[in-house]
């Protein structure tokens, strides 16, 4: 019973902490890490009008973390006047990706069909990635809205990965691995990604071995990216709460260990 009660106090503490920090309106300064700066520099270095293939490889459950990441990357790409093709390798990411692209495009006055297009979902991710390497129009004869591929101005001349500057995988799982294993290894397309924090350690070895060109991770990565593009969003807003909750967890771990050692000592004395 005591354990249940203490658990509730921990949850309540977390709730109050997040509510207070979110309500305070204080924006925390976040030094930009080399990893995030590398991704920013990569998108920045591409010639204006470069074609980026943005793949929304995530489920709906990770939206709170994926949204700031996606928004920051899409805003930067649109601001640089790059052309974007959106798609999804997971069914749940399809509508979310379309909405994110629409919102970011509207902010920069971009027109559907002319500046960006959304191809929608393709099942069997390995087959989809390999098929796009042979022909993107054959893989997606129509866009998400049912319009023929050829009718979209932005897709004019885009046939394979050779016509794409990079694939930008926004992921909460292992799908970016497949982009590297099949898209990069077989067709040589550059892979960059924005991933949830839980996936950072999975992708670090790929980044270190040069299989992934650049990456940003988690809400922290989104906040850093927002700083770089001077466009504060969900990442910046959540940083104070994130720092506070981390400190809270550290304090709880400390208290847990302290109580464990005190209890053990008491037991030994008996």
């Amino acid at each position, binding site marked *: 019973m005591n354990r249940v009660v203490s658990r509730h106090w921990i949850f309540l503490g977390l709730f109050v902490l997040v509510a207070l920090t979110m309500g305070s309106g204080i924006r925390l300064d976040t030094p930009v890490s080399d990893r995030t700066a590398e991704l920013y520099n990569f998108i920045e270095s591409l010639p204006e009008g470069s074609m980026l293939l943005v793949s929304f490889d995530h489920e*709906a459950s990770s939206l709170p973390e994926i949204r700031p990441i996606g928004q920051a990357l899409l805003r930067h790409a649109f601001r640089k006047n790059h052309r974007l093709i959106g798609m999804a390798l997971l069914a749940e990411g399809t509508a979310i990706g379309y909405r994110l692209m629409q919102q970011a495009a509207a902010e920069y006055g971009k027109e559907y069909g002319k500046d960006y297009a959304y191809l929608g979902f393709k099942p069997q991710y390995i087959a989809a990635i390999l098929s796009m390497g042979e022909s993107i129009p054959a893989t997606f004869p129509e866009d998400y809205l049912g319009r023929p591929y050829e009718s979209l101005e932005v897709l004019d001349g885009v046939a394979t990965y050779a016509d794409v500057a990079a694939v930008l995988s926004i992921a909460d799982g292992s799908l970016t691995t497949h982009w590297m294993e099949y898209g990069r290894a077989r067709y040589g397309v550059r892979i960059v990604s924005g991933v949830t924090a839980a996936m950072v350690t999975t992708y670090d070895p790929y980044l*270190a071995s040069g299989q992934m060109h650049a990456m940003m991770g988690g809400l922290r990565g989104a906040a850093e990216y927002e700083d770089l593009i001077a466009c504060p969003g969900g990442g910046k807003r959540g940083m104070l709460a994130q720092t506070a909750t981390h400190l809270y967890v550290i304090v709880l771990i400390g208290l847990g260990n302290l109580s464990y050692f005190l209890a053990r000592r008491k037991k030994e004395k008996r």
Partner: protein
Amino acid sequence: MDVGTAIAGVLTLAVLSFLYRDNPVYKMAESLLIGVSIGYTLVVIWSSTLVDLLFRPLFLDGMLPLIIPLVLGLLMFGRFHRATSSLSRLPIAVMIGSGAGVAIPAMLDARILKQLSATVMPVLTASGIPDLSAIVIIGGVVTTLCYFYFSREHKGALGSAATVGTWFLMVFFGTTFGYTVMSRMSTFIGRMEFLLTEFLHIAN
């Protein structure tokens, strides 16, 4: 407040109510999530797989070779009856055979060979100073592999190397756990932001 925001807000609170204890409101939200997710996925897969990749090209465009995957797909349903269950082995064999053929070389290259070549690096920088990160990476790979070498008892030099390997593993587990905590907190913060701003209008 639009209907979508109101529904999302109420359902978020319903899910968070589990933190107090299991209750019917939480169960309703959980069932709704499962139902909607499956329904949405089924509709998307029906339209983008069966209609776009099979029915339309086969029946409208006359692409007859597509009869083969159609028949293989139908054979999968053989599993539902004991008399026909053996028929499902054929599509499973095709899937496993082609899947393994495609995946093994790609995985071997990306997950082993490329990672291995990234580990083989000079331990000295161009100016002759030891490269600490390279030394740590090489040391970490070698000692961790020693830990997973089970053909000899972990004694002497092998035992010491294996112990160092476990330290590297612990650091990895700790980092991964830390990132996972960060990810889960981000998800909670994201929902709290939604509740406080869009749903309850308490914060800006």
